[in-house]
């Protein structure tokens, strides 16, 4: 059993990243591993914009990932500074439900409690 941390630094609607993340965590949990946290940094914070509006025949992977993390008690965090710099979140505009604002310090502290960091 391995305890994983995930760092997401790329991707939004324009690329496959979050879909790959969902595949990875689904397979890891199924195989009996533990996902300690998923941390969104740099342009990955575009994934948490609450105003994302997709056609009904396109799955919203941000929401699917949030649901998976809630079911499996995985900390799903985003860097609040990176999000605010990009205008993704503010006091009036919170992130998609399930994504928790955090600082780089929380990401840094969590590195002490994982076996492997995987970056997407």
């Amino acid at each position, binding site marked *: 059993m391995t305890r994983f941390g995930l760092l997401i630094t790329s991707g939004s609607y324009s690329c496959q990243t979050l879909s790959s993340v969902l595949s990875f965590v689904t397979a890891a949990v199924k195989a009996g591993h533990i996902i300690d946290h998923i941390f969104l940094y740099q342009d990955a914070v575009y994934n948490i914009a609450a105003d994302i509006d997709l056609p009904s025949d396109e799955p919203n992977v941000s929401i699917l990932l949030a649901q998976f993390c809630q079911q499996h008690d995985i900390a799903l965090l985003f860097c609040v500074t990176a999000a605010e710099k990009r205008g993704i979140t503010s006091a009036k505009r919170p992130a998609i439900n399930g994504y928790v604002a955090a600082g*780089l310090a929380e990401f840094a502290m969590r590195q002490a409690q994982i076996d492997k960091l995987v*970056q997407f």
Partner: protein
Amino acid sequence: MRNILVLQQHSPFNSSHGREALDLALALAAVEHNVSVLFRGDAVYQLLSTNDHADFKLKAYSRSFKLFSLYDIEQVYVCAASLGERGLKPEQLAFAAEPLAQNAIVDLLAAQHQVVTC
């Protein structure tokens, strides 16, 4: 405490990668991890001096590299081959990162618990 390498790969001003990598390195060091930083590829341009210019509006964040020692980040390296490919010499750098040959970079990577690519 973990050995964590922050791998800088991007040029200084085309994107926010370098700036956000700096923030991340300092945050990791602030909670007592053993942080190393390696500049490779176009990231070596981050180590050159910056001039103030009225027409250039981006923050010269690379001047904050002097904070590394304040945060006890003593292992700051630059890929010697990346410098050579760009016609740069270590003595031209505004921040004196230690040049590493490829085999030393292999050893550096092997010594890490975690590598963060920025």
